[in-house]
C-alpha cells in the first residue's frame, strides 16, 4: 500500500481531471467533485509527508526499470512539503473559484484544466528525472495557457500573448540545456547526473550549461531581468486563477533552481556571484515596480517578483542557514501569495474595481473582513511574530555571517518597500473616505451573493490566514522542516543513495 505512495498525489489529480471531464456540462457537479477531491488530496499529501518525515526519502521506479535507466519519482522532505502546500492551495482555490468565477467561464472546462495544472505541479515536485521535469513543466504551461485565456477578454488575450511567448522561450532554453547536459553525460536521472557532472573536466562547458538552466528557470521564476511577462499577464485572468499562478507557478521555477543548483551543479564562485547579483536586482526592481502601480493586482504581481529575490538570495548565499531561510520563505510565500490574490478578488467583488485610487472606506463598511485582510497583509510584511518575519531573520543572519552587505541591504530595502506598499494600500483602500463609484449593471457584487457563495469566498481566506498564523506562531516546527530540507539539499549523498541503491533491492 505504501510502496507506491509517492505517485498517489499524481494519480489522484489525473483521476479527478478525468472524472471532471466526464461531467463537462454539469458545473454544479464539477464544483462538488473539485472541492471533495481537494480534501482527499490534502489527506493523501499529509500521509505522504508524515511517511517521508518518519522513513526518509522514498522512490518509485516507473515500470520497474532500475535507475538510472527508467524514470524515477523521488519524494524527499522538500518535495513532500511542496506537494502538501500545493494540495492546500489547490483546495482553497477550487473553493474560491467555484464562488467567484462566473458560470460563463466555468463552462469551458475550467475545473478539469485546473486539476491538470495541479497534476503538473505535483509531477514537477516529485520527479527525479530532468527530461521528465521538462514534460511536467509543459503540462503546467499548457494548462496555464488555457486558464489565462479562458473568457477571451481583450486584456486577457494581450496578456496571454506575452505570457505565452516568454514561457515557451524559457522552455526551449530549458530543452537546449537538457540537450547539452545529455551530450556531456549521457544520462537524464538527476541523481546519476550529480555524480557524472562532478567528473567532467571541461568546467567551462558545465558553467555554460548551468547558465542555460539558470535562464530557463529564471524565466519561469520571474527573476530580474526576465520577469516582464509576469506583471503584464497576472492581473488579467479572474483572481482565482491569479491566486494559483501567483502562489505556485513562479515557485516551481524556484523549486527547480534549488534542486538543480544543489544536486546537479554544485555551485562554484561564478555561479554563486551570478545568482547573488540576480537576487539583489530582483529585490530592488520588484519593490520599486510595485511602488508606482495603481492596479491592486499589479501591485501584488510586482510583490511576487520582489519576494522571489529572497529565495534566490538564500540559494546564492549557499549556506545551510541561508537555504533553510529560503525554504521557510518559500513555504510562507506560497500560502501568503495565494491568499493575497484571493483577497484582491474579494475586494474586486465588493468594490467592482481594481484601481486603488477609486477604492476607500472598506474598513467602515466591513470591519470584520478588513481585520482578516489586515492579518494577511501584516504576515506579508513580516511584523513579528507573524510568518514573514522568521525566514528574513535566517536570511539576514546568513548574509551577515557571509559579510555580503549588498544582500543585507537588498533584503532590508525590499522589506521596507513592502511595508510602505502595504501602508499605502491600507490607507487608500481601508481608511480613506469612500469614493462613490458608478454602479455596474450585471456585475455580481459581493453583497448580492448567496450565503453559501459568500462563505465559499471568505472560508478559503480565513483558512489560509490561519495557516499563515500557524507558520508565524509555530515557527519552530516550520524551522525544523526547513532545516531538514536544507540539510538534505546540501548533503545530497542521501538523495543519490535513495535513488540509485534501489537497484540492489530489485535484483
Amino acid at each position, binding site marked *: 500500500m505504501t510502496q507506491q505512495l509517492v505517485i498517489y498525489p499524481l494519480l489522484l489529480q489525473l483521476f479527478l481531471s478525468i472524472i471532471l471531464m466526464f461531467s463537462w456540462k454539469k458545473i454544479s457537479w464539477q464544483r462538488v467533485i473539485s472541492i471533495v477531491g481537494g480534501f482527499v488530496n490534502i489527506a493523501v499529501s499529509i500521509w505522504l509527508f508524515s511517511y517521508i518525515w518518519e522513513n526518509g526519502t522514498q522512490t518509485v521506479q516507473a515500470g520497474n526499470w532500475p535507475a538510472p535507466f527508467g524514470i524515477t519519482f523521488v519524494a524527499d522532505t522538500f518535495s513532500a512539503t511542496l506537494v502538501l502546500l500545493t494540495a492546500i492551495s489547490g483546495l482553497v482555490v477550487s473553493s474560491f473559484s467555484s464562488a467567484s468565477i462566473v458560470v460563463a467561464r466555468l463552462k469551458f472546462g475550467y475545473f478539469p484544466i485546473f486539476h491538470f495544472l495541479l497534476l503538473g505541479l505535483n509531477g514537477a515536485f516529485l520527479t527525479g528525472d530532468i527530461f521528465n521535469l521538462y514534460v511536467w513543466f509543459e503540462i503546467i504551461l499548457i494548462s496555464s495557457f488555457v486558464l489565462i485565456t479562458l473568457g477571451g477578454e481583450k486584456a486577457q488575450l*494581450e496578456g496571454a500573448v506575452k505570457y505565452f*511567448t516568454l514561457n515557451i522561450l524559457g522552455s*526551449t532554453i530549458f530543452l537546449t540545456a537538457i540537450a547539452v547536459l545529455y551530450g556531456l553525460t549521457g544520462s537524464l536521472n538527476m541523481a546519476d547526473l550529480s555524480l557524472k557532472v562532478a567528473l567532467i573536466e571541461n568546467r567551462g562547458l558545465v558553467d555554460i550549461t548551468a547558465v542555460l538552466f539558470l535562464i530557463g528557470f529564471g524565466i519561469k521564476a520571474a527573476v530580474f531581468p526576465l520577469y516582464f511577462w509576469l506583471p503584464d499577464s497576472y492581473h488579467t485572468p479572474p483572481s482565482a486563477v491569479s491566486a494559483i499562478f501567483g502562489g505556485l507557478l513562479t515557485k516551481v521555477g524556484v523549486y527547480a533552481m534549488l534542486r538543480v543548483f544543489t544536486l546537479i551543479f554544485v555551485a562554484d564562485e561564478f555561479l554563486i556571484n551570478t545568482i547573488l547579483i540576480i537576487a539583489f536586482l530582483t529585490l530592488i526592481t520588484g519593490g520599486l515596480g510595485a511602488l508606482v502601480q495603481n492596479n491592486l493586482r499589479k501591485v501584488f504581481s510586482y510583490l511576487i517578483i520582489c519576494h522571489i529575490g529572497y529565495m534566490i538570495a538564500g540559494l546564492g548565499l549557499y549556506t545551510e542557514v541561508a537555504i533553510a531561510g529560503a525554504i521557510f520563505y518559500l513555504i510562507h510565500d506560497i500560502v501568503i501569495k495565494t491568499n493575497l490574490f484571493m483577497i484582491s478578488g474579494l475586494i474586486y467583488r465588493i468594490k467592482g474595481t481594481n484601481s486603488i485610487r477609486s477604492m476607500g472606506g472598506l474598513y467602515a463598511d466591513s470591519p470584520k473582513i478588513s481585520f482578516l485582510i489586515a492579518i494577511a497583509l501584516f504576515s506579508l510584511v513580516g511584523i513579528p511574530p507573524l510568518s514573514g518575519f522568521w525566514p528574513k531573520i535566517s536570511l539576514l543572519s546568513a548574509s551577515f555571517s557571509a559579510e555580503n552587505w549588498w544582500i543585507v541591504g537588498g533584503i532590508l530595502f525590499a522589506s521596507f518597500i513592502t511595508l510602505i506598499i502595504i501602508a499605502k494600500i491600507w490607507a487608500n483602500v481601508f481608511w480613506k473616505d469612500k469614493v462613490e463609484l458608478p454602479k455596474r449593471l450585471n456585475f455580481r457584487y459581493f453583497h448580492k451573493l448567496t450565503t453559501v457563495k459568500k462563505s465559499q469566498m471568505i472560508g478559503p481566506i480565513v483558512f489560509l490566514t490561519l495557516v499563515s498564523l500557524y507558520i508565524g506562531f509555530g515557527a519552530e516546527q516550520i524551522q525544523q522542516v526547513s532545516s531538514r530540507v536544507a540539510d538534505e539539499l546540501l548533503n545530497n549523498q542521501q538523495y543519490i543513495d535513495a535513488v540509485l541503491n534501489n537497484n540492489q533491492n530489485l535484483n
Partner: protein
Amino acid sequence: MEVVLAIIIGVLYAAGIYMILRRSLVKLILGIIILGNGANLLIFLLGRITKGSPPIIPGDSNVFLSAYADPVPQALILTAIVISFGLQSFAIILIKRAYQVVKTDDLDEMNEIDQDS
C-alpha cells in the same frame, strides 16, 4: 555530417530569435517554431550520430556486439515534437483570436494592459 548539423542548428537558433524579436505576431509564432526545431536537432546531434546500427541485441547474444545508435535522444525528440506541436497549435489559435479582438498584429500596439486601470 556533424559540422553541417551544427551550422544548421546555429542558423535555426539565430533565425528563431531574430523572428521572435520582430513585432508581428505571425513572425513571432514562426520564430518559436524555428527555435523549437533547432532545439530538437540539437538533441539529435548531441546524442552522437551513429549510422546504420540499430540498438537491437542479436538473438544469440546477451550484450551489444558493436557500437549502436543511442535510442534515448530519439525518444526525447519525439516527446519534444509532440509537446511543441500541441503548444504551437494553441499559439496559432491564440494569435488568430487576439488579432480578431485587438484588430492589430503589431505587438507594440497591444498595450491596453499597460494602461492605468
